[in-house]
């Protein structure tokens, strides 16, 4: 039986199972609407470290350790560690992998990394190359600011389209059996650019990629949008999410109340001064780990389509005037009765 479905989708013949999830976040995320749902909330963004980068590494390592512990496993029992982050040469993932001592495949999908890890992890498991995989990713507001924009203490005014990079890390252990949610499909996105160049408006740059992946996933799987209790994009925010909804409506797909966005769920935009909402690898990862998987496990929702979105640019590329390409990958999760 072919494991391919339509143009961009893979369907798992033995759906891999989400065995455990873990989330570790910073203080601001802890004060957001999902604050109570995270496993660990840190009280200090620097975590007592000498640099923001070291703090992000601790977040990533703690999330991984916790996910492994919750699964009742030891690092030696993990076949592959799939992880990435936003920093140059994905140093957070690389250095965390050194600490973990698990065979490692580094990923870069910007803020879509969680879905890339889940899709590839699912393929490794369903292909018979692994029985247990750990997928994770992280971001940190200050490491991202300093790399992509300005020194953190510089007084700059944020435009209303700007998003706030989530300080947090999410990790998930995926295996072959168990009572948890099952990973049934993965739709791998194409890189799309609409010629936008503003690095403080990533929602508009990423919306077309999300719309294309969602549309293609529904085409490939033959499902209607109503099949899913929740369709959640990663970090389109208050600007990109309505644009994505409009793009899909223009193609004849009207999404209802079930269409949401992790970047809108994680912060209270009125109270927390985050402008258009959350972003970063950690955004979809911690909302997946702290909010969606627990809701699946509690059977509050049965079918989830998670579509993390990534803006694939670097400070060099935008300074040289290149447009901002984006990608979105979709993973479908279901909980059996």
């Amino acid at each position, binding site marked *: 039986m072919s494991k391919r479905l339509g143009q961009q989708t893979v369907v798992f013949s033995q759906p891999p199972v989400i065995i455990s999830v873990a989330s570790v976040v910073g203080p601001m995320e802890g004060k957001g609407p999902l604050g109570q749902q995270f496993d660990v909330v840190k009280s200090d963004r620097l975590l007592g470290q000498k640099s923001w980068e070291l703090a992000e590494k601790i977040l990533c390592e703690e999330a991984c350790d916790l996910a492994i512990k919750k699964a009742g496993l030891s690092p030696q029992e993990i076949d592959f560690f799939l992880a990435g982050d936003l920093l140059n040469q994905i140093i957070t993932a690389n250095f965390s992998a050194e600490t973990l001592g698990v065979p490692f495949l580094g990923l870069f999908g910007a803020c879509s990394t969680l879905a890339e890890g889940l899709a590839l992890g699912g393929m490794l498991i369903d292909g018979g190359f692994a029985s247990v995989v750990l997928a994770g990713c992280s971001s940190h507001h200050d490491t991202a600011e300093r790399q992509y924009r*300005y*020194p953190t*203490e510089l*007084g700059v*005014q944020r435009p209303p389209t700007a998003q706030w990079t989530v300080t947090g890390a999410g990790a998930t252990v995926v295996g072959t059996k168990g009572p948890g949610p099952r990973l049934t499909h993965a739709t791998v996105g194409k890189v799309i650019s*609409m*010629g*936008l160049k503003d690095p403080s408006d990533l929602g508009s740059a990423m919306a077309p990629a999300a719309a294309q992946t969602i549309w293609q996933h529904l085409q490939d799987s033959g499902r209607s949008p109503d099949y899913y209790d929740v369709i959640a994009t990663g970090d389109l925010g208050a600007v990109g999410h309505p644009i994505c909804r409009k793009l899909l409506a223009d193609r004849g797909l009207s999404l209802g109340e079930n269409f949401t966005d992790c970047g809108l769920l994680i912060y209270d935009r009125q109270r927390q001064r985050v402008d258009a909402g959350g972003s970063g690898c950690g955004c979809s990862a911690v909302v997946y780990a702290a909010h969606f998987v627990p809701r699946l496990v509690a059977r509050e929702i049965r079918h989830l389509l998670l579509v993390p979105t990534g803006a694939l640019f670097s400070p060099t590329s935008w300074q040289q005037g290149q447009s901002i390409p984006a990608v979105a990958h979709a993973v479908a999760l279901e909980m059996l009765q």
Partner: protein
Amino acid sequence: MNKQQKAYQRTARAMQPRRPILRNTVLAFLVGGIICALAQLFLSYLLSRGLPQKEAFALTSGFMVFWGALLTGLGVYDVIGRVGGMGAALPITGFANSMVSPAMEFKREGYVLGVGARLFTVAGPVIVYGLVSAVVVVVVKWLLTGTP
């Protein structure tokens, strides 16, 4: 750029929130005005105590740079900048912020490769083009009046 990209950019632009220009302008006026008024107050005080004008100007600049730097170090100036925008960036306190914030940020890479190499990350372009425009102005003046 192709037709599809142009069409999308029109759609996206129509749905993007506008910058609150009026509010930002008023806040910049207030924040910038307060900073300048404080400097004026200090300057007037020095002059009233009989300090020569040249020394009083220099001391006032130093005083304002000190406060800009201190408030940056205390993590306050980025909030002033977020609210005040150009009103916080343009006075000399903003210049202090643009020097101290990279110094704090890049100290983690050491005094040579960090602070030394990247201290002018933000202020560098201001200094470079400030000097260039000074030269241009002098050349224009020289051509027009015959005296540099």
